[in-house]
């Protein structure tokens, strides 16, 4: 095994730099990480593939980073000093804001990457605020200066104006061509602070992340603050006093390199015969098994799912496969929660919790792609706090579980603080969208021709299609970020959808009374198009309590017989029947009515 006594600079903290790269999506974070790895020789040219840190197939394809990864690089400075640079990559989407915070907490500095042809976006802001909250030194980098459309001066002015960061030291680079990268590396060693820590003290490390690796088992990413973590050492987790013996220890360069210990200020991984990823709580403090009276490090608040929905196999016989897929996926994703549930319409499935809609989409896509299971998803829902008349508070994850109206004192729903940055010409349309979604405007500022808006919006108005809408209204130019703000009481009601007089549980949703009628009507119109005609007529209704707020009828098939059928038609007729039968397999029988799967999905994606 490629192992050595310790890292080269034996706890020389002044030669370590720990930092994250933060950026709005597509501004070039992954490309920059690639370039840094390449220039410092972490990988040979032939081993380089684009976006080395985005290891999951889906991450590469969507071009977004989902899980934080770390890499440890050696860099010899112009003054011929050897530095260890530890980079923790951060996810690039709002849904994973919490994971960004986790990465930032493990370092002392950030490289803020801003696309010099685009300028500041919503996530640029959100990420910078998180860096500042973590007391980071921030290096401003203007990327993509090779592009003709790049306008570094304008973007610098904007950064000063909108974010309030000094840009006199800003570095202009092209992560694509490599221009300015050496300059950047020098600035990293000069401007970013080294970590502090004391090797003689008792071991104290932060559990940054953990995941399951087929070869190594559960792998734990740690940042050591004091003391060191050694091979063979018995450690314990402060949260539950569970102890483990360290088996392997090392760093990613980005290939694994085994070491004997990790010293203060260092970031690396260990394995310790850990059974489950869930045993390793991210943000926990790790110390020596014998240590007494150790104060916990500032962990970070655990990531709580905010969006819930039911996942069901289209083909009921795929349930076992779905269970397997969900269990495996959750191994590596502590923020993905699940619980078995049954739906009258859809059979056996799972109610799952996600960090946001993108997270939901990614999980569904992985189930489809990696496990080959066609899914039906029910309406995404947020967590409502239902106060009952007997002074109980129920956390409601599934609209179906809402107690009867007479038992409800009030319902509270979660609100978010949304920040949106958008070119002025789309401002009107975006404000209209926010207002339609019951938003309350907090701030509206301009920087150049761009508006920076903050709104409070109920999360349940955002989970459906807000992000898609925002993008389409602004032709892709608006950027969006949010954080969960608070709970507030609202006039919320459960809207049921009745097909042939029977309520379809998978389509029930909680909505604000003021929008219920409109939504009910749209869903029902959609269903009318999607449910095929039957031999009898099918009434469709949206209802609140016993009151019908919208209705439609699917008329009965009265005649569909083919007039002529010769020998040559037999193949065609047979294929038609095969198609019908295949379609039926993808339908769910609800009472007497067969509802195609896509009706469930499409009804919820309806254009409100």
């Amino acid at each position, binding site marked *: 095994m490629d192992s050595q006594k310790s890292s080269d600079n034996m706890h020389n903290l002044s030669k370590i730099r720990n930092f994250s790269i933060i950026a709005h999506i597509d501004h070039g974070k992954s490309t920059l990480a690639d370039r840094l790895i390449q220039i410092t020789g972490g990988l040979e040219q032939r081993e380089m593939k684009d976006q080395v840190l985005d290891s999951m197939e889906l991450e590469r394809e969507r071009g977004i980073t989902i899980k934080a990864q770390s890499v440890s690089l050696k860099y010899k400075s112009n003054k011929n000093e050897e530095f260890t640079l530890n980079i923790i990559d951060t996810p690039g989407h709002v849904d994973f804001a919490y994971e960004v915070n986790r990465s930032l907490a493990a370092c002392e500095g950030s490289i803020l990457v801003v696309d010099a042809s685009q300028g500041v976006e919503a996530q640029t802001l959100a990420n910078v605020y998180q860096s500042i909250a973590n007391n980071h030194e921030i290096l401003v980098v203007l990327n993509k200066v090779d592009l003709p459309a790049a306008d570094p001066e304008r973007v610098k002015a904007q950064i000063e104006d909108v974010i309030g960061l000094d840009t006199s030291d800003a570095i202009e680079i092209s992560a694509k061509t490599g221009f300015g990268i050496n300059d950047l590396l020098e600035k990293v060693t000069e401007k970013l602070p080294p970590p502090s820590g004391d090797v003689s003290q008792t071991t104290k490390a932060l559990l940054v992340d953990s995941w399951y690796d087929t070869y190594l088992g559960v792998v734990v990413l740690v940042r050591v603050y004091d003391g060191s973590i050694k091979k063979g050492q018995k450690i314990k987790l402060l949260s539950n006093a569970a102890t483990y013996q360290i088996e392997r220890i090392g760093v990613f360069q980005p290939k694994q390199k085994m070491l004997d210990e990790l010293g203060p200020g260092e970031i690396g991984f260990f394995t310790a015969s850990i059974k489950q990823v869930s045993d390793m709580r991210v943000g926990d403090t790790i110390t020596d098994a014998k240590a007494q009276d150790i104060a916990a490090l500032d962990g970070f608040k655990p990531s709580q799912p905010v969006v819930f929905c039911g996942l069901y196999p289209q083909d009921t016989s795929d349930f076992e496969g779905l269970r397997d897929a969900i269990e495996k996926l959750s191994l590596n994703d502590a923020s993905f929660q699940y619980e078995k549930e049954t739906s009258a319409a859809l059979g056996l499935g799972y109610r799952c919790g996600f960090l946001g809609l993108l997270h939901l989409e990614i999980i569904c896509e992985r189930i489809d792609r990696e496990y080959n299971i066609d899914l039906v998803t029910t309406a995404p829902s947020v967590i409502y706090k239902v106060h009952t008349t007997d002074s109980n508070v129920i956390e409601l994850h599934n609209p179906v579980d809402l107690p009867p109206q007479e038992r409800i004192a009030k319902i509270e729903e979660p609100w978010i603080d949304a920040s949106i940055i958008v070119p002025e010409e789309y401002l009107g349309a975006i404000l209209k969208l926010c207002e339609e979604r019951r938003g309350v405007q907090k701030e509206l500022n301009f920087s150049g021709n761009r508006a920076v808006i903050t709104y409070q919006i109920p999360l349940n108005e955002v989970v459906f299609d807000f992000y898609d809408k925002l993008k389409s209204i602004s032709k892709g130019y608006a950027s969006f970020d949010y954080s969960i703000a608070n709970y507030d009481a609202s006039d919320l009601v459960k809207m049921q959808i009745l097909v042939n007089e029977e309520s379809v549980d998978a389509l029930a949703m909680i909505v604000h009374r003021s929008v219920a009628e409109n939504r009910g009507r749209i869903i029902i119109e959609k269903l009318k198009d999607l449910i095929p005609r039957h031999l009898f007529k099918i009434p469709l209704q949206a209802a609140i309590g016993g009151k019908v707020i919208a209705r439609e009828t699917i008329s009965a098939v*009265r*005649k569909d017989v083919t*007039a002529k*059928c010769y*020998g*040559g038609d*037999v193949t065609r*007729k047979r294929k038609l*029947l095969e198609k019908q039968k295949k379609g039926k397999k993808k339908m769910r029988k609800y009472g007497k009515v067969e509802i195609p799967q896509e009706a469930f999905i499409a009804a919820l994606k309806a254009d409100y």
Partner: protein
Amino acid sequence: MMSELSIYIHWPYCLSKCPYCDFNSHVADKKIDQEEFLELIKTEIDYHSKYIDNKKISSIFFGGGTPSLMDPSIIERILTHLSGLCNIENDTEITMEANPTSVELQKFRDYSNTGINRISIGVQSLDNDDLKNLGRTHTAELAIEAIGIAQKYFESVSIDLIYARPGQNEKAWKLELERALSLQTQHLSLYQLTIEPNTIYEKLYKSGKINLPNESLSNELYQITEEICHKFSLKKYEISNFSKRGFECKHNLNYWSCGEWIGIGPGAHSRVREKNKKRRSLINEYDPYNWGQRIRNYGHSMIENSVLTDEENQDEYIVMSMRTRAGLNINKFEKLGGKLNMDNINLLISNGYLSRSKTEENIKVTKKGSLVCDSIISSLAD
């Protein structure tokens, strides 16, 4: 047991193309070399001789296009060629489709001498304005004359009518149909006008230039058709086919009961089986020119030759048999390896869409069910 086989011969040419028609029929751009066509047909027949050898031929059908454009001598030589390979008997039904134009009725006698014993005349309508609209080049009077001549020469005469035409109401159809029935043919095929893909009618329909009867009128027309035929002692034995007792078209019944047939000519489909082997589907090249080229190059024109799975055979049996008066024979379906969904079937029976035959052996659509036959078919088996 000697198995029975039907033979279909496709003639792909017409004098003009009717705007509603999606059959494999073309207006030839030069004079058709009938001798050459004959050779190609013979070559294709020979290629499939292993499926034909020594079988009893229950029916032969010359379809089109307009096969009555063929010289009687060509028909005669095709039949002679076939009789060298298999057993054409006195009771073999030999049908030819004919258009009622003056050229063709003159040949009826010659056709009858070749062995053709059944003729199916494309009358389409007895209203001259409507015939024009349908793009037909003959009049109602000529069609009636053709029927008269045909009745002299053929044991069985059938006529095709297209109804539920644009602007047609119950009264008009009732009168037209009664007039047609008074001509006393043994058989009628009564098709509701269907807008077929890639036809001129489709274009007209989509652009709103022709209107079809609405659903309730078309239902009405369908039902009075059955009632009127019944009054004239003609039995409906398939969705669109009516006959006097004993004059059902054997050839089509074979299609509808999932039998064996061999299709010769461009675009023809076959369902064949060698002894102790599985039922196969063969499909010929569609385009008449390419069809000829393929035969010259390979001796056949097949573009598909595949074994049908059990499920495919079951599906074909369902879609075809449910169109017929006899319906689906449960025993036969099970022999094909199929399993019926009895829950669905019982529900459809209790709702009046299906019934069981007196012997309980067959399931068939009722009058009510026959209107929604296509919907019903899809829930009989899973």
